[in-house]
């Protein structure tokens, strides 16, 4: 899913190519075992993280989905169709992504760092980008079922057309990359585990309030804050797809913002990982 950002981050992460050959002999130094390559390592981390879902994540995925469906049912009494309904459905769907990719990933990395779990990865010859991207990709993948269910239920609830819901196939990975990158960076940069959790929760609350509530009624400063939040662009892209004839150029521009934020935030997260792993 974060293939775009993966390629964007790679060159920085494995630049020390001169170091990657097994070396031996000349100066009497022992040969070094090979380094793990980016993509296989990323795949291994992704697979391991995905397997954690069975043990630890499924209840939380239900919570994320029920929360979003509940919000839509609540808003059903206040909002009657039109632009506002689109905003509510799109906001609730992307909220699932924010809950898992931003909030839970921030908590995961915060906890891993606080407990010394990063040592495990830091003592393996694995590119930092593989660890960060593998975990981010797995967390973004966790959001797929919940986001799809929320979007379909919401469309049915508010009588919105489902013809263009396929756009979720781009919205989930791209807003997932942006929010997971943000979550990973927060989790790895927060000086204490509690702060990582707090930042994750606040980020999710912001995504909830600024994403679900219709933008038209917001005071100016809050509208600016809304523009700063990367999930907003995922919400906008999804909301526009409910038009009878969506303006695909604007949708693509919104998704482009998500992708750009994703690249930057995952790069920052990778840097933060390096910093956290070796002290």
């Amino acid at each position, binding site marked *: 899913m974060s293939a775009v950002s993966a390629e964007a981050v790679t060159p920085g992460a494995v630049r020390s190519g001169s170091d990657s050959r097994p070396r031996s002999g000349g100066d009497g130094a022992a040969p*070094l075992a090979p380094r793990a390559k980016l993509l296989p390592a990323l795949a291994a981390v992704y697979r391991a993280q995905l397997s954690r879902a069975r043990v630890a994540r499924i209840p939380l995925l239900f919570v994320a989905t029920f929360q979003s469906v509940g919000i839509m049912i609540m808003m059903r009494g206040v909002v009657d169709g039109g632009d506002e309904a689109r905003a509510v459905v799109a906001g609730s769907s992307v909220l699932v992504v924010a809950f898992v990719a931003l909030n839970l990933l921030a908590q995961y990395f915060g906890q891993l760092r606080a407990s010394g779990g990063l*040592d*495990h990865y830091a003592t393996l010859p694995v590119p930092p980008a593989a660890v960060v991207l593998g975990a981010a990709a797995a967390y973004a993948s966790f959001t797929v079922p919940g986001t799809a269910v929320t979007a379909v239920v919401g469309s049915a609830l508010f009588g919105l057309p489902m013809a263009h819901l396929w756009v979720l196939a781009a919205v989930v990975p791209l807003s997932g990359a942006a929010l997971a990158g943000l979550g990973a960076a927060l989790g790895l940069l927060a000086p204490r585990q509690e702060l990582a959790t707090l930042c994750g929760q606040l980020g999710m609350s912001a995504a909830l309030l600024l994403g679900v509530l219709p933008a038209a009624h917001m005071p100016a400063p809050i509208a600016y804050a809304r523009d700063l939040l990367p999930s907003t662009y995922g919400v906008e892209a999804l909301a526009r797809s409910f038009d009878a004839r969506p303006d695909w150029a604007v949708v693509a521009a919104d998704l482009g913002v998500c992708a750009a934020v994703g690249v930057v935030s995952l790069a920052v997260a990778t840097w933060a990982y390096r910093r956290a792993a070796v002290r």
Partner: protein
Amino acid sequence: MKEAAAAATVCTVRGLVKTYPAARGRRGAPGTDAVRASDGIDLEVRRGEIFGLLGPNGAGKSTLVRQLTGLLRPDEGSVELLGHDLVRHPERAARLVGYLGQESTALDELTVALAAETTGRLRGLSLRAARAERDAVLDELGLAPIAGRPLKKLSGGQRRLACFAAALVGDRPVLVLDEPTAGMDPVARRAVWAAVDRRRAEHGTTVLLVTHNVIEAETVLDRVAVLERGRIIACDTPAGLKELVGDEVRVELVWRAEAPLHVPEVAALRDAAQAAGRRWTLRLAPAEARAAVAAVTGGPAFAALDDFTLTTPSLEDVYLALGGRAEGAEGLVKA
């Protein structure tokens, strides 16, 4: 001769210093002073040996190990591992060392099999090689029956063994094991030492072991460095270290209630004894020890005596004789 010894040296540490900065107190909790966790450490580990770091909690064992595995940058000094300068190139440690840390949080939610396989993949093995090594190691350690269970659901000792399995996947010339057998039952311990011995015999693997278990240290280590407040206060074979305390004998007396201090022989021992509740520990020359035992088992003191033991010195005694600070060596585990 000297050159041959140098060639057989796997790890050379010189003048290693690491200071943790003072922490500011916050809201009631007092701050802590700066701690010199490594205070000028010199060390040489030879090829194929099991080298131990022994010391109580807080002596600086883990700090030293973290510097040897590239996890922590020393303030001063040099670390050379198999010809590589790890202070300048800490990232090379991951390609030379299999490390078992004290924490398993990164693996806790994986199954035993996936933990081993993923770790192998991240050590650069191909999928096929990682799976083959995973199966071999799980069989070797007797973990195959629980291969499908998540680490989180295992007992402490089993979880530790699963982490040890992950550390072994993907051969490394050096293994750094931080208290590998903590919480393990005897069967698991034997599996660990058998696996270590096999790698040593077949590949000449060098093992650096952190422990605060003196019994284990005496039985498995070739050489041991005793750490105390960031310094190495002695480094030799376990037998060599025990010679330091000469032929002293340890006498332990356990009284039924109060020690019978009205008996002159017992009162005379009082000053030499370390008392912990009803238990007295004495380190005496053999003749003195015989006299003391005769006194407490023969006369009126015997009625007050619950139990006594007479043992040859252990590494714990060495630690105390060297001036170890921990009273009664509470940081060192005997069993």
